[in-house]
């Protein structure tokens, strides 16, 4: 009896020390900071091992890994906070540039093509949202269906062949081909979405809907609108990311993106501190999560470690991140 009592109180003392110690306080509150520190340590390690990690070419390489995924991850965070998910966004990524391509084939200017690609992407998000919300189908299933539908559509309209990206001049540089274009787009997207999340009604309602949907409805929040709107945001960003990629590499590949980029984005978001069961998450965290993943991937490539091992590491990282999320949430709740 007394034995177990002592260990009980020891545990609670330990927990108090853990949660009240200023250093762990910092890590509990600043999840992004702790992930960023891991990223910096990884950079130091890879630089010391390869001595080319921080060279210009490799940095460029690194950010190309990062930018397109981070743009998608930023949108996916909004859905994850809602306790929803979009599995089809990587296929929107592949479809959008084809919509642009065929619009330009029809003798419209490139800008119109880009807008058409984005519009179709947003519309797919709208359909995902409407089906999920009004038919009550879990978004995991809804977007699994649209994943295949969109993929089939892309393969059909392209006949499975890649095309050259249309357009010349400044628009091409702005939309992904310029050396810093994708970085700038990523920063803009992350900045805006983080701001929306923490400084606007939309963000507050997104947290409210994800945290307690019944409560959110009872205070009069239109939770259906919030959900559908965030499905539109993530699909729109999938389209934007795909269009940027098509300008960066000057060709449009029907097999680009897909589940690979979608899962990387979700992995980045989770590693960056977003809980899959809703209510918690930051866009900046997802960016840092995706950067850390890219650092690992790139570092492994430079070290000559195989892609197979990378998947192994990725899987472990996700599990560890999820465990940390759960543990940290428990500690946070025990904190006060």
């Amino acid at each position, binding site marked *: 009896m007394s034995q177990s009592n002592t260990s009980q109180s020891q545990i609670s003392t330990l927990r108090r020390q853990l949660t009240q110690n200023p250093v762990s306080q910092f890590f509990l509150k600043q999840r992004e900071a702790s992930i960023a520190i891991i990223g910096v340590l990884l950079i130091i390690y890879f630089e010391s091992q390869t001595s080319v990690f921080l060279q210009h070419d490799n940095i460029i390489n690194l950010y190309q890994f990062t930018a397109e995924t981070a743009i998608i991850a930023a949108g996916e965070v909004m859905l994850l906070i809602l306790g929803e998910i979009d599995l089809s966004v990587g296929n929107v990524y592949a479809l959008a540039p084809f919509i642009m391509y065929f619009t330009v084939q029809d003798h419209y200017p490139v800008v119109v093509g880009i807008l058409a690609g984005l519009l179709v992407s947003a519309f797919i998000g709208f359909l995902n949202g409407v089906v999920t919300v009004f038919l009550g189908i879990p978004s995991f299933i809804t977007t699994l269906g649209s994943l295949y539908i969109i993929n089939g559509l892309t393969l059909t309209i392209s006949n499975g062949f890649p095309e050259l990206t249309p357009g010349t001049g400044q628009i091409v540089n702005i939309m992904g081909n310029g050396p810093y274009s994708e970085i700038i787009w990523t920063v803009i997207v992350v900045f805006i979405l983080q*701001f929306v999340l923490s*400084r*606007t*009604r939309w963000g*507050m309602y997104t*947290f*409210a809907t*994800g*945290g*307690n949907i*019944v*409560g*959110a*409805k*009872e*205070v*009069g*929040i239109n939770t259906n609108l919030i959900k559908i709107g965030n499905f539109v945001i993530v699909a729109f960003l999938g389209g934007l990311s795909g269009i940027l990629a098509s300008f960066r590499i000057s060709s449009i590949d029907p097999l680009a993106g897909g589940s690979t980029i979608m899962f990387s984005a979700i992995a980045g978001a989770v590693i960056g501190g977003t809980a899959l069961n809703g*209510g*918690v998450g930051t866009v900046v965290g997802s960016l840092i999560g995706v950067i850390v993943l890219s650092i690992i991937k790139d570092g492994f490539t430079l070290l000559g470690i195989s892609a197979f091992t990378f998947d192994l590491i990725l899987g472990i990282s996700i599990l560890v991140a999820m465990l940390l999320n759960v543990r940290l949430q428990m500690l946070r*709740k025990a*904190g*006060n």
Partner: protein
Amino acid sequence: MADTNMSALRVEHISKNYGAVTALRDVSLGVKYGEALGLIGDNGAGKSTLIKIMTGYTSPSSGAIYVNEELKHLHSVSYARTLGIETVYQDLAMISELSVFQNMFLKRELLIRGTPFLDNGRMKREAQEFLLTLGVKLPSVDVEVSKLSGGQRQAVAIARALFMNAKILLLDEPLAAMGAREGAAILELINNLKKKNVAIIMIGHNYAQVLEVCDRINLLQRGVITYDKGVSSNSMDELNDIIIREYRIDQKQAESSAAADGANKSH
């Protein structure tokens, strides 16, 4: 509001079905400004359903709702709110992941003038001041609601309802999650609100607490109001009698259906 006999909120012949389940059969009741009406009844009697109808969260299957004696169709919570009707739900409808001030301002946020951006600084200050005027003590308005005690949450929920000048306050079991001292603080809060001429309908389980603060009692049984009287020294006894009679009827029904079962089985 010149006429002191005018009902603040009145419902007539309200019924509500959820598919085959009849939650409310035929309910009529009303409450005046400065009056507290206690609504009591067993679990499943339909009390929460009635509150949800009066706050525009669900619509009745039939019946009419009058606010200030004008027929109103409460098609949404937001609309009911514009009429001065505020509700504190049984499940509190608080968002645990958001802070106290965010919860208090949810759906009526203050924005930085001329922008779509939240004015967090001003919201914190105003929430803090308002809680002080109600005598609600919290460590900080920045703290997540998940970290508050049951009583603190309830106080915040009521404060939130009053925050936008509620004229008609509906409380669904406001004392349920609370210790005796916290409960007393909430009862005092309700008494103060009556003095400020707020119309209150309060659902309660604990008759002693309901009788302490309410002016009139309505008993809801199986979707109908079966008792409507001002609170007097006899109220407790009367209510106890009704409940005991009810219990006996239930028992008899149980016995006879058990007997019927037995009879069926023996065939």
